[in-house]
């Protein structure tokens, strides 16, 4: 049985609260032992991790891999390669493809393509409603048997409160979470950026923060009433974070995610109409950014999600109203958050790693996120001192639509292992 000794790194296992100088022994694709002064088994290979951080691979609860139907934006193959370049060993893929992932066959396609691509593990989410039309529930049992780990209408609010209630009830039969884009669709309709003084100056239609607050309040009330597992996608407002905090205190089964761009950027970026900053939910105010950082730090928000949404350059090269929402994020999430949250003292390194691995794994009920003996050796090796400049032109993703092009960052992924095999190295 082949083995690999990763030697002399700073081993951080946030799930176990461990942070030690030591080694990680990988045997048969699984984690064998973690601790100081381990010896290589037999004729196993060794890897020097001096100066590096060894941690569980990142888990992305929210990525758009765009296949089938939107291969000009991304394929499962290019998406999982981008993922491992960013330290991600698992991604939950969104079902808003063409056709929509809403039946066992399409879930099976994602699973099979994910395996064949040989990068990060792909865990598909299926649609809540057939065709994401918000009318009829999909066959949750069938899609779960085919490999789906969650249901979501991905970027679209389930407008009918009845259907959302049924989804939260029915999902309990299969112990899966409902991933929700929470927004009052009527209030948000037509809005292309955060409603505030910047949208007023630019003359663009605003998407008011209160639309998200109402959506979150409704879904929290339904989760509380049904006992279902609700995962709130890409929280963007202080008010929504406050509602989630109070719901958790009451014991509602809710988890939540936030993206790097919502954690770091404000609506002021839109000045100049840069479509690279056009995202949904929109970039909000500085007060929202501060509240989101605090909510991630105190655990109100469980995890970081990239909401990786590749777009073809032609699509973004349009007048602002016509350009689609979305940014890519898999290859830059760790670096920008390490630079601007960890080095700025908002989060500890172990805290950020928790929110990028154990946190999302727990929220979605996925394997991984811990350095537990016997578990698959999905690992990331990080050089926390590496200084580099983000260059969209060098991305492995087909999408170049980053909000962080040209940013100087500190800290980078140097090697990613899935099942004990190196799938990416710098």
């Amino acid at each position, binding site marked *: 049985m082949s083995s690999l000794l990763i030697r002399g790194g700073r081993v951080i296992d946030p799930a176990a609260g461990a942070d030690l100088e030591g080694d990680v022994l990988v045997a048969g694709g699984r984690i064998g032992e973690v601790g100081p002064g381990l010896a290589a088994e037999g004729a196993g290979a060794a890897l020097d991790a001096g100066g590096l951080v060894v941690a569980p691979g990142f888990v992305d609860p929210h990525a758009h891999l765009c296949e089938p139907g939107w291969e000009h934006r991304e394929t499962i193959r290019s998406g999982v390669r981008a993922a491992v370049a960013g330290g991600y060993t698992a991604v939950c893929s969104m079902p808003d493809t063409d056709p929509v992932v809403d039946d066992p066959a399409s879930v099976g396609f994602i699973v099979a393509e994910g395996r064949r691509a040989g990068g990060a593990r792909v865990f598909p989410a299926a649609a809540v409603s057939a065709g994401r039309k918000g009318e009829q529930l999909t066959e949750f049992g069938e899609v779960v048997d085919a490999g789906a780990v969650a249901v979501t209408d991905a970027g679209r609010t389930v407008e009918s409160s009845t259907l959302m209630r049924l989804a939260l009830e029915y999902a309990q039969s299969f112990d899966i979470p409902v991933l929700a884009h929470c927004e009052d669709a009527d209030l948000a309709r037509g809005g292309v950026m955060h409603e505030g003084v910047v949208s007023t100056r630019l003359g*663009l239609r605003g998407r008011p923060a209160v639309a998200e607050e109402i959506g979150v309040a409704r879904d929290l009330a339904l989760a509380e009433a049904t006992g279902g597992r609700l995962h709130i996608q890409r929280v963007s407002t202080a008010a929504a974070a406050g509602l989630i905090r109070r719901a958790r205190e009451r014991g509602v089964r809710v988890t939540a995610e936030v993206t790097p761009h919502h954690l770091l950027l404000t609506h002021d970026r839109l000045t100049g109409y840069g479509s690279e900053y056009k995202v949904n939910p929109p970039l909000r105010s500085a007060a929202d950014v501060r509240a989101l950082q605090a909510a991630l730090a105190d655990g109100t928000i469980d995890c970081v999600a990239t909401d990786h949404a590749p777009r073809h350059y032609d699509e973004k090269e349009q007048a602002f109203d016509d350009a689609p929402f979305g940014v890519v994020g898999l290859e830059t999430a760790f670096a920008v958050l390490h630079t601007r949250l960890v080095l700025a003292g908002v989060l500890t390194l172990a805290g950020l790693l928790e929110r990028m691995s154990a946190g999302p794994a727990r929220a979605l009920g996925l394997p991984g996120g811990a350095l537990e003996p016997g578990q698959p050796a999905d690992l990331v090796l990080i050089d926390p001192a590496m200084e580099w400049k983000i260059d969209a032109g060098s991305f492995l993703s087909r999408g170049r639509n980053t909000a962080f092009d040209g940013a100087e960052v500190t800290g980078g992924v140097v090697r990613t292992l899935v099942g004990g095999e190196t799938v990416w190295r710098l």
Partner: protein
Amino acid sequence: MSGTAPALGKDLTGLEPLSADQIRVILDTAEPFKEITGRRVKKVPVLRGKTIVNLFFEASTRTRISFEFAEKRLSADTVNIGAVGSSVSKGETLVDTARNLEAMSIDMVVIRHWSAGAAAFLAARIPSNVINAGDGAHEHPTQGLLDILTLRDHFGRLKGLRVCIVGDVLHSRVARSNIYGLVKLGAEVGVCGPRTLLPAGIEELGVRVFGRVEGAVEWADAINVLRLQLERMQDGFVPSLREYNRVFGITRELLEQAPGQLLILHPGPMNRGVEIDSDVADGPHSVILQQVTNGVAVRMAVLYLLAGGAPHLAEAARDWAGA
């Protein structure tokens, strides 16, 4: 180009990016061009050999014709492209339209587009001068300039002048350009309209907000009345045109309550009996037709300056007329 006056740069995308001095240069340069408009031979050769494309993605009569007059009186060659019946209606993107025009070696583009930011988008991608003739609800800088010029003509000053913009500020590019320009030039600016049609955070642009038009009339020296688009009623921003006219309409009875003589501006086209009553529009307070006249002069000034004309030579340009 010589002299110490500030240049405008390559484009005019709005009044927000301009300095007070740059706006003053445009207004001052418009003065000699006003006079040309009143002559028998209304043509000077300052843009001879220049090619200008008027690219109107949105219907416009007044602004398009005003630009066309300005261009022709400066002896430019002009081409008009409208959205209907052109490649634009065949799904061509804005950037492709622009590149194709560029390949035909044009010098300037005047663009009207439904999307805010479209003029700046184009300006960043082609080397020609770009003039914004209205982009969504963002800016309509030449309208703002002609309104400000009309105010300056009438009052002889802008500093401390109280101007209230009344109506649908939310959807109005005219309102934004007026606010940016007037605030930079030291005027006091108010806005008044139903709260549903005042955008979020408008106070942060340095304006005072009036809930009722009676208060605005008491405060202001001049009122700029915005057009109420009929769609706004269908979208529910106002419950009825009748109520709008009664509560926010500029009527003769309302003006009689004002402490002084108020100047009335309207960017047109007017909905008589909705935002403005006919006896006001046609009455002694109204400078609505002077605005139209000034529009041509202001646009001549902008075209002249962007083409590299020196402000102090505009006077000389006037004297070439009929040469």
